[in-house]
């Protein structure tokens, strides 16, 4: 829900102004801007309501920690921070540090929250939660680097969203800043680091996360 609301708001005309998302017209194109803004707002609060009301068989202390985690990830220290720095750096030359800040906050933070909340609900202790947070940080960044690479190398139809936007808008991307080959090497390093964080867990139960990292690294859209 939170992920969706951030996409709805990101696509708005005054933000990234995207007409296409996941192969379909964006929310504001179909329903109008005011409805899109409200739909995003409603989804955001529904997310918190849902966690609070529908979580079963978990200690209140952990549910509260999850709410804190989500609250952090969505707001001015998370998604919003990433979007702000992204907007403010458009048209400017930015370095790898700033690019990483943008991606960590626009993408990684929510993945971290997802993984951390899962670990909290599942009864993980602090050290385990920390490893999983680092895993998520890696795959979050990984997702964006691969996204940048695909934007350069694929078409809209294959991607399911508007391609070539980054090149057109002169936005900073990993291929642009590092070169395509180095960006691909970075992908491999991030994927390996993510797997490393999982090494302390049971092979069977951590398999989904392991394969998810692989998928994110080597996907085609």
């Amino acid at each position, binding site marked *: 829900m939170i992920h969706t*609301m*951030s996409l709805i*708001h990101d696509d*708005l005309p*005054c*933000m990234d102004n995207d007409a296409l998302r996941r192969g379909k017209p964006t929310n504001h194109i179909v329903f*109008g*801007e*005011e*409805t899109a*803004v*409200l739909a*995003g*707002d*409603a989804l*955001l*609060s*529904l*997310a*918190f*309501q849902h966690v*609070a*009301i529908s979580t079963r068989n978990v*200690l*209140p*202390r952990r*549910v*509260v*920690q999850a*709410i*804190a985690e*989500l*609250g*952090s*990830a*969505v*707001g*001015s220290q998370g*998604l*919003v*921070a990433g*979007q*702000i*720095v992204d*907007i*403010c750096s458009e048209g400017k030359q930015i370095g790898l540090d700033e690019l990483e800040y943008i991606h960590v906050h626009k993408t990684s933070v929510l993945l971290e929250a997802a993984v951390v909340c899962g670990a909290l609900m599942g009864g993980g202790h602090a050290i385990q939660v920390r490893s999983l947070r680092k895993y998520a940080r890696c795959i979050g960044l990984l997702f964006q680097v691969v996204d940048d690479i695909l934007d350069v190398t694929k078409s809209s139809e294959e991607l399911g969203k508007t391609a070539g936007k980054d090149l057109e808008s002169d936005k900073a991307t990993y291929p642009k800043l590092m070169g395509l080959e180095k960006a691909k090497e970075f992908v491999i390093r991030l994927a390996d680091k993510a797997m490393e964080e999982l090494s302390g867990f049971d092979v069977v139960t951590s398999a989904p996360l392991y394969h998810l990292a692989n998928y994110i690294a080597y996907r085609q859209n």
Partner: protein
Amino acid sequence: MVFASIFTPSPQVSCPKATSPIIRRSIRCGFSPVSAQFDLKTYWTSLIKEIDQKLDEAIPVQYPQQIYEAMRYSVLAKGAKRAPPVMCVAACEIFGGDRQAAFPTACALEMVHAASLIHDDLPCMDDDPSRRGQPSNHTKFGVDMAILAGDALFPLGFRHIVSHTPTDLIPEARLIRVVAEIARAVGSTGMAAGQFMDLEGGPNAVDFVQEKKFGEMGQCSAVCGGLLAGASDDEIQHLRQYGQAVGVLYQVVDDILEAKSRVEIKGGDNRTAKSYVSAYGVEKAMEVAEDLKSQAKRALDGLEKYGERVMPLYSFVDYAADRGFSIGESV
């Protein structure tokens, strides 16, 4: 007016001073004979000071500065009455709750209130270039920043509750209920629904819009206070009915004052066609207000056993109806 002699007019106040009660006083419908003597103004202004300070501490400017400036601009706006936080604290104290434990929730209510106002003012929504006599958030910071400031304030509210409420005073289970309550109030069955119908609904949507846009926040504020203090389900229901009635009452009286006044109120809420005044005229709106006043007080009758502790909420009904003194410029 009781408070006229101690009230010092502030340059920001543009509301016309009432020389007689806006709503004719009905026969005493409360249970307490001393309600007229409760010093609501002092109670309220001292709470505002504490809440303002805590809000200032809750949103320190960090990187990236622009978003924090935008958030602070709306949350710390001069002249804000802080009705939601004050109602929350007052409700909490009825049941013997510690106001220090209520402050994080009180602040969160103000944050989500500010967030919803920022979004309401957007060009694609009510399109208000000003609020409380100042440029609205998007006018000052741009539409993209305003959307994001609202998006940041909602989750900050939830986080603030869970990170700042002392859990030795308030068990986590209650915090969860508070979060659920606020989320419900601002969401698709609450304020968002009200705003949507305000923009898209037909002329018959007046009741719905008023209840959802204004009743919800009142309801939520009072209920959260009760939840924090461990009030019973029955007591929570009374708070809910009170909050709903007083929230709408406040707005109806605002609309009546604006309609009656010859001076245009600058920076007030955008009056859409979905107010009681626009839909039914001033006379009918005054009847509605009278009815709401009774409803609100009747709801508090159910909390009779708490005696004087109900005073702040009780007095607030009279204030909402009569505006016997001035606190800031707008809710």
